[in-house]
């Protein structure tokens, strides 16, 4: 589903060159719940940006759903994100001007086959908050709106960048529960990036990054439920 072939990403800031990812080769299959772990600056976000068609590699090729996205132009990358991908960010990244329903509607209309907005909000437990604005919701609720927004267009792959980073333990477990259920019931590919080691237990594949290189890639045959996570 996702294929990295010898991917390197170098950032140039002035005369300083920083290698964020180095010669990464990787395959992720459909239905995988992948957790990417690593300390700050290890290249996790860069990897997500590249997989999520938000950035282009300096070297190597990236294929997603058998499309070589590393050769896409800006317009094609945007169309690709529109057709296949969903995102959930640590800071929720909601549109403050729009209410919950409208935030979800914004992505629903990008899909040819969107879920019912009310159904997806019910799924994340926010149907009764539909008319509220983001600032009227708690952090967990906002993150659930963010998930609903990603889910409503039924993406093939869901990218989550530290989705529980700003949440308390209980809320974090609720959010992860939603993601886990989606992976299991909808066979949705989920790529979750975090520095929190304990989240590794719920994934069926775990990659550890350090200094832009994969230092560990393990398959977890028996992932646990979210209740088992110890923050």
């Amino acid at each position, binding site marked *: 589903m996702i294929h990295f072939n010898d991917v390197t990403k170098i950032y140039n800031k002035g005369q300083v060159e920083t290698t964020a990812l180095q010669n990464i080769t990787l395959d992720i299959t459909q239905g995988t719940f992948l957790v990417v772990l690593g300390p700050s600056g290890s290249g996790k976000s860069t990897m997500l940006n590249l997989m999520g068609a938000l*950035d282009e590699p300096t070297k190597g090729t990236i294929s997603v759903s058998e499309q070589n996205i590393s050769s896409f132009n800006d317009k094609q990358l945007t*169309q690709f*994100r529109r057709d296949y*991908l969903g995102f959930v*960010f640590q800071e929720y990244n909601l549109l403050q001007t729009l209410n919950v329903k409208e935030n979800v509607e914004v*992505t629903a209309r990008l899909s040819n086959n969107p879920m019912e907005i009310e159904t997806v909000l019910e799924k994340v437990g926010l149907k009764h908050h539909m008319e509220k604005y983001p600032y009227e919701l708690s952090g967990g609720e906002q993150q659930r709106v963010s998930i609903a*927004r990603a889910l409503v267009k039924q993406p093939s792959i869901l990218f989550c960048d530290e989705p529980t980073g700003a949440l308390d333990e209980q809320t974090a477990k609720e959010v992860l529960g939603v993601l886990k259920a989606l992976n299991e019931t909808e066979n949705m590919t989920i790529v979750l990036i975090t520095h929190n080691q304990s989240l590794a237990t719920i994934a069926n594949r775990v990659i550890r990054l350090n200094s832009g290189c994969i230092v560990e890639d393990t398959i977890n045959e028996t992932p646990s439920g979210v209740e088992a996570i110890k923050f």
Partner: protein
Amino acid sequence: MIVKHVLKEVKSKWVSITLLGIIIALSSFIYTTVDLGIGTIETNTNAYFDEYVQEDFALELSALLTPSDRDYMDEECLSSAFTLEALYREDRACFNTVLNARLETLESIEGIALEARLFKDRIITSFDSDHTVRIFRQTSSINKTYLQRGSLPENDGEIAVLKNYANANALQIGDTVNIGDTDYEISGFILVPDYNLPALIHPFLFTTDTQTIAVMHNETFDNLGGSINYHVAGIFTEESFDLDQALDDADIDFLMSSTLTRNNLRSGAIYTEIEGSKGAALFISVMIASVGIVIAGLLMKKIIDQSRRPFGILRALGMKENELFIPFIVLLSLYSFLFLVLGYYLGYLSAPSVRDFFLSFYLLPSGAITLTVQGIMVAVFVPMAVILGMTMVILHRLLRLSPLELLKLKVEKVSKLSFTKFKMLFDRLSFYIRMQIAFLLRNIVKVSVYALGVFFALLLSFVSIGLYDVFSGTIDGYYDSIDVKSVGYFSGLEDTDEPHEKVIEMNGTINGNQAFFIGLNNDTALHPLFDASGNDLRNALSDGVVISKSFALLSSLQLGDDIMLRLGGTSYEAQVSGVADIYPGEHVFMDRALMGEVFFENSDFYNAAYSNEILTSDVFIEVFNTEDLLQSIESINDIIMNVLYIAMASGLAIGMIIIYLLSVLTVEDQYYNIALFKVLGYQDKEINRMLLGGYDKLNVVILLLVIPTTLGIFQILTWFMANEYQMIMTFSLSVAHVFLIAGLYGIIYVLASLHAKRKVKAVSLQAALKIYQR
């Protein structure tokens, strides 16, 4: 550290901040240029008029000798002369006796002082074309001669002329001019407080290229050939003196008319225009400054908001509010002071040009440009205080928050406008329209500031471009509208074979306001009269008095008003039967037969002729051709238009800078939304449609609102300038102007949006989300 932070912010917004500085500097520049340039003339003129005793009023006396005149004339004085002018030629002593007797009779009215103003109009023949000179006999108490350079004529054969005339004809002191086969040496340059050069040939023909005022030694004047003309100049020695009433009560048979002349066309001429120009410039600079300050406030708020997190960190580290506050204020003070002083300095440098420009056709004394404390306060310190005050409020509101609150992600609450009542309708709208409405109405404060800013910027642009026809539409517009090529003035009821229409032209008053009466045949073919709707008003001449639009504005009269006409001591009540859509000044029109009957007891009376051919007959004592007038106006218009073009360009530039800044600020405000929509999978066009589409529609609405507002402002300005300054200004806004401004605005808006979007495109989408969410 905080200084470093502010400087970094400034660096990232240098284009906007520089443009803002230009607006600040321009507001100071315009005010200073006008305050110093015109203010200097105004101050000098006031002193000049006081010291050289400008007349308050003028009395026109009968040219014919009256029975009461004859009472003063002894047996020896009797001659065949029946006009004062003839008496002057035949018996100078007798002329003086009659004139002094008339003055004595008039001076028996308490509360006024008088002096005769004698003058002769002659031709200077030293040049390729004839130049006209009005030579005054020097006075001793009223309208005294002001010497600008050289000396007043003390000997026979000397003459002093206007400096502007000398400059225009490359004449120096010591050069000679020829009048009636005699050479006169120029002894000096002079001015007179009753500047009536404009009335020399025609009220609007005031070019010093071919005309001058002059004085000679009084003996030389007396010996000079040519007809003598005169009026009586007067000043009030009592306050609140009712001249009309006093003259009515005195019932003097040789008195024809009286005119209040202080600071109007007959004396001072343009004093009020100077005040008017100053007022208009002040209005424009205050408008620019106000909009500039709104934009300054927006930019400051943006910079300060972006300092929220650094402020939080520094406050958490133990920095006091003042330690953050003071560097900001000091930097802003330096910045605004720098641009305001720059504007002031440039204004100081350009003030002499403005002064000299005015003095190139206004005959007033010059003076050195002097700086005033009040001027510096208004141009520099008042706007600086407003900008600083506003920034202090914004800073204080932010810094009173706790460090923790400052460090938190700022979540802006939306304006939750209730759509409950319109929900059904709202939900039926297309997705994009709903998004546009949501992004506009739920950010109502920011959008209101944007809308107000654009509104004022467009208004400024429209008002600037409306100056295009502000003067040219008045006089030459009038002469374009009639078929009169030549006007000849008769000395009596003679006639000529040349084709013409007989008319009466006389100065009089309506409701106490000076007016120029024109008696037309009601079937006149040469002088059509139409109202603003295009209706022919010639028939209205039989029903009352048709007034020009300019006179209606100057005297606040309208159709149907009852008015009192006064001419040569006769009063006549009539009604305004039409308002002609022309702006020639104080023109009012009557049926010639009625006018002759009422004021001259002769329905066949006339004193002038209009012709669509050039009149040449000797029967005319004076002929003026409208073509000459239009040429003179054109040369003056060229100068005025150059100044107006500068004013228009400045106004347009400022308006467009403001629109650029507002557009950039608006797009910058949308950086986060742009990045997020892009991440979600929206294409650039769709994002533009959603986020900026609402602004596009808002801009159209603002444009549609600005047009009627501009027209309303033009009406108010026209009325204000006419009533307060007796100036007729014909502002106009054509469809082409609207399209020009809208086009320019559109281009600037698109360029600004593209420029602003480049910035968000320069960073990765996820980075943009993180940066701009804060």
